[in-house]
């Protein structure tokens, strides 16, 4: 097994045939494909990559989980805790922003931030872009994106009842949220 692990800067032997596309953890320089991470190179389709298990900063198109920290009529600020399923170490969260036009795909003009998120909600989102100096732009405009965990005013964990509503099991009250489609439904 020892020969399979490559180190940064080490050339990766390529079998004869077309040169593979370089993925993450791999780069090509002067016609040689080299590793830039410690690990075992593997093929995913025609891309050669070294999988990284360490946390990484969000990039466009990565799926993130975060909790809502601040609300305003124009945007919701989330603190990103998980990037592509890899949790970030405590204290090294990134800030993301869900703007009012990125909450859902339809009826964008009728969106009210206060009817979609509340402080403390856990949200699954997709990173749109690197955003500005302070935060990443995150969108929830997809069925499987949105609030995945929320507590009601009474303090109980709520369950989604529709795309826009969640119910408190304790009091039976309905609260408005932009719910994510539960996994496996």
């Amino acid at each position, binding site marked *: 097994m020892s020969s399979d*692990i490559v*180190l940064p800067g080490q050339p990766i032997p390529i079998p004869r045939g077309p040169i593979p596309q370089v993925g993450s*953890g791999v*780069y090509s320089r002067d016609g040689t494909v*080299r590793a*830039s991470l410690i690990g075992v190179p593997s093929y995913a389709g025609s891309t050669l990559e070294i999988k990284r298990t360490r946390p*990484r900063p969000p990039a466009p198109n990565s799926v993130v989980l975060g909790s809502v920290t601040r609300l305003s009529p124009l945007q919701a600020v989330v603190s990103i805790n998980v990037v592509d399923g890899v949790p970030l170490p405590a204290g090294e969260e990134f800030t993301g922003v869900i703007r009012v036009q990125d909450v859902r795909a339809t009826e964008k003009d009728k969106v009210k931030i206060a009817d979609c998120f509340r402080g403390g909600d856990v949200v699954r989102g997709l990173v749109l872009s690197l955003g500005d*100096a302070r935060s990443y732009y995150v969108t929830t405009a997809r069925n499987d994106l949105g609030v995945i965990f929320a507590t009601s005013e009474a303090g109980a964990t709520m369950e989604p009842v529709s795309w826009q509503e969640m119910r408190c099991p304790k009091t039976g009250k309905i609260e408005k949220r932009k719910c994510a489609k539960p996994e496996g439904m």
Partner: protein
Amino acid sequence: MAQSNFDRRRINGPEESFQPTFEDDDDRETRWKPGNPRIGRGARDIRPIFLTAGLINQANGSAYIETEKTKIACAVYGPRQSKSTTYNEKGRLNVEVKFSPFSCTRRRVPIRDAEDRSVAVQIQQALVPAVRLELLPKSTIDIFITIIENDGIEGCIAAGSVAASAALADAGIEMLGLVASCSAAVVGKEIWLDPTEEEGKASSGTLILAGMPALGTITSVWQSGSMTPADGIKCMEACQERYTDIHAVIAQSLLDNAQNNT
């Protein structure tokens, strides 16, 4: 005046401290005299290196290096979100070096000296070309280096760069290659690699070379003191030859660490 910048947060040692002097210190026969060959090892030999990665578990990546009396611990945190308010397409590499108060023959006052910053600059310069910062927009990588014991500042810078590159690889930060570094000193007509503090004092000029042996590129050259151009080139060649061996040491310790983790 001394009261105004008195450091109240730490336990303060005496204002001045000196090494104890021993009677037989000066007329010892083991002391090197000009014209004699180097004591203890060959002119082109370096001190043995002990390097382990992943010693500090709350850091993202870490390394510890020991070359005889030089002992350095290094921790890497991040990539984390940059605190600065300007948008940056590339990541930032932050290097901070700290000398422990007991690291040198003279006591180090924690805040008041500037040498740690110049060492940090040199280590940062050695590492920056190797790290793929273009993949980490808006992020900062923090490298903290603690010099526990210092035996020659040149050796410290070289060993610090080696430890930092091992720690970066351990942290899973993408790099073009591992950085190895070696120092040299011109003493009389000879070139001595990896000088100790004594030897550094006896030399007329020193040179520190850092590079990526895997790619055959040099990332940093730092020369101080006086040295003829011919000597400078000879030093660089000697360093380049030797840092391939140092690269093998880094590679071996990282491989051992990777295998223990799987």
